[in-house]
């Protein structure tokens, strides 16, 4: 088992003919992901790395049984693409683009919730169930199947952590990139719920960062609902207040969202918080033996 995606996930790539879409389609295929079709209205009939290009997501669903979509189109077209995928009936939607306007994102999430579609992102590296399916832009070789569920706000930092875990012998059930935007789909709480209910997942790693109150809310949720061990690393310990550190959400405003408040909340909920990224592996080892 894994959460969100697995070996039955049939992926359509929206924007497959673009630079990133094409490159990561090849990477996903190399990983073994069932990429069944790509979408580009004007290039329908062509192929990209052997994957048929069709005109619309509906066509990908009808002809190739796609049930999940990964979006690589430019941010300004992402709302249209996302609503197309939702309308066409996919059940998982991974939104890679950054700089999608927040109001567009709110519209996407409203439609997705109504249709029961699980959205990852936007501004995410995607989601991977190692050995089964990868929908995202993460490197192929850093993951291995195993008992650790990872949920992260930022990509590269989670690669770092996943890689140290893999090298330390702790594989992953599923790794979820929440995305760095303010308005995102699957968040810590939903991911924690998924992992708590997933028999394969024995321990959960959260990769958070300063800004917002997502980690604080996650801490409350953990206290109330999560019995599996949770280990966390948070970025931004050295960040000065008032400066937006890249992600839309990563800014300390007033006394909200500081590193200290997050660490306190998580530790009060029984979460082990690592000071350095590679300490996560040690904390996991202590808990999984």
């Amino acid at each position, binding site marked *: 088992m894994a959460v969100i995606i697995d070996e039955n996930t049939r992926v359509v790539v929206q924007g497959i003919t673009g630079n*990133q879409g094409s490159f*990561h389609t090849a*990477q996903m295929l190399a990983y073994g992901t069932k990429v069944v079709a790509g979408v580009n209205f004007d290039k329908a009939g062509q192929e990209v790395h052997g994957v048929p290009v069709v005109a619309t997501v509906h066509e990908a669903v009808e002809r190739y049984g796609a049930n999940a979509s990964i979006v690589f189109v430019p941010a*300004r077209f992402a709302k249209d693409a996302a609503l197309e995928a939702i309308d066409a009936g996919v059940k998982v939607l991974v939104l*890679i683009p950054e*700089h*999608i*306007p*927040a*109001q*567009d*994102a*709110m519209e996407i*999430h*409203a439609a997705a*919730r109504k249709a029961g579609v699980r959205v990852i992102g936007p501004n995410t*590296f995607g989601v991977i169930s190692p050995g089964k399916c990868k929908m995202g*832009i*993460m*490197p192929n070789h*850093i993951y291995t199947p195993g008992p650790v569920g990872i949920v*992260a*706000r*930022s*990509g*590269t*930092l*989670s*690669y*770092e952590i996943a*890689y140290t875990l893999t090298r330390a012998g702790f594989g992953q059930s599923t790794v979820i990139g929440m995305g*760095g935007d*303010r*308005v*995102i789909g699957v*968040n810590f709480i939903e991911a924690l719920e998924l992992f708590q209910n997933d028999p394969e997942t024995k321990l959960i790693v959260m*990769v958070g*960062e*300063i800004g*917002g*109150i*997502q980690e604080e809310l996650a801490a409350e949720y953990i206290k109330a609902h999560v019995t599996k061990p949770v280990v966390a*690393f948070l*970025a*931004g*310990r*050295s*960040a*000065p207040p008032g*400066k*937006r*550190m*890249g*992600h839309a959400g*990563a800014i300390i405003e*007033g006394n909200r969202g500081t590193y200290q408040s997050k660490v306190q909340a998580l530790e009060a909920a029984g979460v082990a918080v690592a*000071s*350095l*990224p*590679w300490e996560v592996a040690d904390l996991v080892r202590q808990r999984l033996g």
Partner: protein
Amino acid sequence: MKLYEYLAKSLLAEVGIPTPQGRLATTPEEAEAAAREIGPCVVKAQVLVGGRGKAGGIKLANTPEEARQRAAEILGMNLKGYIVEKVWVEQQLKIDRELYVSITVDGQARQPLVIASAHGGVNIEEVPEEYIVKKNIDITTGLLPFHGREIARRLGLSGDLAKQFGDILAKMYTAFRKYDAELVEINPLAVVGDRLIAADSRLNVEDDALFRHPELPRVEEGTELERKVRATGLAFVQLDGDIAVMANGAGMAMGTLDVLSLYGGRPANFLDAGGGASVEPMAQAIRFLLETRPKAILINIFGGITRCDDVARAIVTVKETQGIPVPLVVRLVGTNDEEGRRILAEAGIHAYTDMGEAARAVVAAAYGEGR
């Protein structure tokens, strides 16, 4: 993007929200003429920094002559690094009561959020939770008259003031959607006799939606270098240290600063080389870092959408075209890392695989082994 006060107020007035009379002035004479029209007024520096009042950027003027004098004092003033070029000359109000109302993006609910309080006029974060009314708006159906009535009820408003409140709220939402705002705030929403007036207001437009708003003048915040770097599409924040840092991904960039700090390094900046930048923009980013004349440079890449070979090519390009005169420590892992490592090796640059090692190495290189 924050809008200048005068522009925010003008846009809110345009959608029909009652705002105080005001005129923009760039000279003391214009301020005097404005005051002649408006009467007793407030002269307000148009800069995007907080605490203008305390810093002397907001002054009362009861006569046109006073307005000219106050404007003369304020224009040209240096407010937290910004030179005042314009003042907003605004009608003084006799305020009976102050309310608060704003519409913002609620990331948790993934919906717009109205925040209101009968205790306005102060920073909303200082108002106790029990005096604050919050209500999410379904973005697919929008803000309807009932939202105004329900929020007015919870604020204890009734009669005509409640109607005015609902009307203003509806228009704020119109502005929120029309301008892709991340914040529309009226504080205080003033009770002046039997009327509600948006005594002070803010309108922040989301950066990511600016492409839909060619009509809005661009306001750049930050230092000159920050603006120059951001213009290339990179996330960049200047800090006060001396080791320049480039990483890919905001979390990784933050994490790199954290690790560097823990090992005694003083980061000179936050730079997220970002999602899949190609060679030339990354080379440009490295050039920008060199401009800050750091003691050393740390490049920490865990390739995902960013390809390690592109990073390597960017480094080599800079090295070959202009040289890199300070110690450079590179850490490279992830997508196409073998190819990247090979390209760097050909140029005589070693690439670490371990982040901690790289951080220690750059600290040593910058401050000397003896440190």
